């Protein structure tokens, strides 16, 4: 049945996507705006209703206190971890946060945990898929950065549950990408996947062998990506305005967002142009103008992209390989469109990297492949199997505050380790265990995962108890612990105190209203959404008829459009959402040329009348950079 349909989801820092296996090929499912990418932006509208994706973007500049982006950076993290992020991201934390509590973000008057905000994005993707299939979707594979720790993975799984999705597997993003590539190229060899996204960096080295994708080593940085480049450019702009105009924009959310939008556009343009002009309207009517050449840009971002070199070298070393032993290099993530990043990868691995698949979509496509494997496979995925690793060593705190590593990083998962504990004093009933993740020698330098209390140990003389504790990392990279007292054979009770994370009860209480599962509600929602879409396209057509482009259409073209318009208006009053969709699709196809003509004239109007004055002003106060002074108008 359709309930068995499993989708693949890329829950990204900047954009999220949902994909599925259509026949022998993975395809991305577009949203109701026709776009494949759903920006990972969540806002509350005037009525406190959540708005997600492209529709939410306008709130970032209009009511920034009611919108949030890059929430992935906060997944599975505590207050003390995010201080650095808070300097650069307009995250508004709830004021009443207790130490050790899961973060909560303020949107308007309400507060949300990062998993809840991610859940809203996931629910949007779920709806997009449901509209596409015309049937409910309840199972998913979700990708995570390979270097995500246990808490970050758990938070992602919680988000799925809150969104009403059963998360069948968390797959590492670079590994997913290699699966998508592996579909076309069924050859054996060593593949390196370099994944630089909006907020995270991963490098994974895989051995591909007759359909088995065996990860040998992985490394990365969960706080390194395109966001960091944006923030650098934003900081420069804020410094410029503060130094030159004495205007402090740091507390002005709207202005910062306007600058952010402009620098992102500039960054993207610089991948294809030798120089760009920034032009942002500032509060008080001034304009911030700056020309950035690609050369300056490259110099500026060098320190950021250089941070990917260390993890790459470490991964090679862990894999026991020299760069020349890598057969293929694959680029993933929007930031790998930057020419300088490509040069760096080419030099690092001494090989021209593959870019055949869209770096924004390849992870979602790979997630769809993995979903297909879990569903029992098809001809295309026959014999394909992913063997992934745990990115970080798992350890236990022992005497002296030292970490005793029990499962080393890059161990194939599932993986397990057994430890034996005993009691220190006569009749001791509890033993406390502190579980850590990380590579450092001292417990205080590692990530605290959880504290466990083994309880109900039968009364014995000190040192007599023999408690066997089994640590198991499952195929999602998530830790499970069980314990048994061996002499009495008694299962010891374990109390888990996750260091950062939601309890089961908390997740249960957050699950988004479950109307998604009811067929009738689902159908009604489909009808409403289809009608909304019909209204949108009809309004757009009205606008088109009044534009200059309309005059360029032939009489025949106009006649056809009129016929399709009539057909849509006719079915729009009925309750058959599939018929409405069909009519929308037809009209959409029929008006492609009109839309193109309208786009052309819009672009040429926008390019006209852009002039700028030179203003000679002093230098900015803090962030040194290789660029000339900014201009203000």
């Amino acid at each position, binding site marked *: 049945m359709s309930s068995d349909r499993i989708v693949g989801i890329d829950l990204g820092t900047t954009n999220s996507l949902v994909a599925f296996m259509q026949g022998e090929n993975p395809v991305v499912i577009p949203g109701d705006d026709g776009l494949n990418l759903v920006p990972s932006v969540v806002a509350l509208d005037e009525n406190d209703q959540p708005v997600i994706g492209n529709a939410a973007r306008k709130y970032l500049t209009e009511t920034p206190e009611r919108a949030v982006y890059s929430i992935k950076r906060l997944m599975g993290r505590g207050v003390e971890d995010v201080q650095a992020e808070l300097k650069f991201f307009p995250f508004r934390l709830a004021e009443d946060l207790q130490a050790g509590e899961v973060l909560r973000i303020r949107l308007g008057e309400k507060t949300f945990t990062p998993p809840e905000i991610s859940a809203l994005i996931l629910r949007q993707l779920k709806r997009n898929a449901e509209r596409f299939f015309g049937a409910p979707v309840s199972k998913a594979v979700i990708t995570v950065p390979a270097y995500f720790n246990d808490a970050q993975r758990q938070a992602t799984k919680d988000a799925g549950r809150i969104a009403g999705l059963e998360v069948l597997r968390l797959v590492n993003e670079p590994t997913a990408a290699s699966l998508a590539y592996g579909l076309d190229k069924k050859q054996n060899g060593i593949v390196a996947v370099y994944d630089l996204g909006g907020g995270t960096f991963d490098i994974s080295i895989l051995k591909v062998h*007759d359909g088995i994708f065996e990860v040998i080593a992985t490394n990365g940085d969960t706080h390194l990506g395109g966001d960091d480049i944006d923030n650098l450019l934003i900081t420069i702009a804020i410094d410029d305005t503060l130094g030159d105009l004495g205007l402090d924009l740091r507390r002005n959310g709207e202005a910062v967002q306007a600058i952010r939008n402009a620098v992102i556009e500039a960054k993207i343009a610089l991948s294809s142009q030798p120089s760009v002009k920034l032009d942002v309207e500032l509060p008080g009517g001034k304009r911030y103008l700056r020309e950035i050449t690609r050369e300056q840009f490259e110099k500026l971002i060098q320190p950021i992209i250089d941070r990917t070199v260390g993890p790459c070298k470490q991964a090679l070393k862990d894999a026991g390989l020299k760069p020349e032993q890598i057969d293929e290099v694959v680029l993933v993530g929007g930031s790998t469109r930057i020419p300088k990043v490509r040069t760096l990868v080419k030099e690092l691995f001494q090989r021209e990297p593959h870019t055949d698949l869209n770096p924004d979509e390849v992870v979602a496509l790979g997630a769809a492949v993995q979903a297909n494997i879990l569903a029992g496979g098809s001809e295309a995925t026959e014999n394909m199997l992913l063997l992934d690793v745990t990115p970080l060593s798992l350890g236990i705190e*022992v005497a002296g505050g030292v970490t005793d590593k029990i499962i080393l990083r890059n161990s194939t998962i599932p993986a397990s380790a057994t430890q034996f504990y005993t009691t220190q004093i006569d009749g001791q009933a509890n033993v406390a265990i502190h579980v850590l993740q990380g590579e450092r020698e001292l417990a205080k330098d590692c990530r605290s995962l959880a504290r466990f209390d083994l309880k109900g140990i039968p009364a014995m003389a000190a040192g007599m108890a023999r408690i066997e504790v089994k640590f198991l990392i499952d195929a999602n990279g998530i830790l499970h612990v069980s314990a048994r007292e061996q002499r009495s054979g008694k299962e010891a009770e374990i109390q888990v105190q996750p260091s950062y994370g939601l309890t089961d009860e908390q997740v249960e209480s957050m699950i988004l209203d479950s109307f998604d599962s009811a067929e009738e509600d689902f159908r009604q929602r489909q009808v409403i959404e289809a009608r909304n879409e019909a209204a949108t396209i009809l309004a757009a057509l009205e606008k088109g008829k009044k534009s200059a482009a309309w005059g360029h259409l032939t009489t025949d073209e106009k006649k056809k459009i009129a016929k399709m318009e009539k057909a849509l208006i006719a079915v729009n009053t009925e309750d058959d959402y599939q018929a409405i969709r069909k009519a929308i699709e037809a009209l959409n196809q029929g008006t492609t040329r009109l839309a193109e003509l309208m786009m052309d004239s819009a672009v040429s109007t926008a390019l006209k009348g852009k002039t700028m004055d030179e203003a000679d002003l002093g230098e900015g106060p803090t962030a040194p950079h290789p660029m000339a002074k900014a201009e203000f108008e």
Partner: protein
Amino acid sequence: MTNLTTITAKPAPGETQTCWSCGTMRAVHFCEACGKVQPPAPVDYFTFFALPRKLNLDVAAMEKDFYQLSRKLHPDLNARAGSQEQEWSLQKSSLLNDAYRTLRDPIKRTQYLLKLEGVELEEQSKTATEQARSSGQVKKQIVPPDLLEEVFELNMQLEELRGLKKAGEDDPALIEEIGRQKLELEEKQEALLRELQDRWKMWDGMIQREQNGQPVSEEERKQERDKMVDVLNRRNYIRNLVRDVNEVLEN
């Protein structure tokens, strides 16, 4: 050497011999008739791969077995099974991964076998060293006598370089000298691996004799174990030295 048939052919002693699901005769890890994963049994890594407790093993053949068993046991391929089977699949594939990871590495394999034989190898471990260091104790390090002089010299030089680096200074000649010694240590490490492999032959020969029905005395067994422990200790000592050298050179 081993292949999938040997693994699939023999259930471990004491196990039921029929598949829990379809009732036909079954293999150890999965049923050949219906493909279902079988319940995990508490076995050691050698038994899991149906290998005798010998140290010279065909790693390429084991890799093949690993891939083939992964195709049966991995949770991804049992995602649609019942929850009990999924649990077994998780347990078994983790055991498979743990066993493969341990046995394919010559040092880990030897340490694991010695542990099965009841030998404790803790005293030279990195954790023990760190633990002693952070609690301020001086750890008993058994310095191999033939290394005594060199090690003393090297430690002095490392101390000197640490001091220089702290003061922000540099001494290319000293760095070069330490680098040269590091190469020597690495060569020694290689030589010790070869020595260990020679010991494997002795051990495997002993196991073979035992399998052929000739009694092996506990004394002989202990001697072979002790010799391997000695090689491992010396090797660990040198490995820790190389680690220290790398730390100083890289910082």
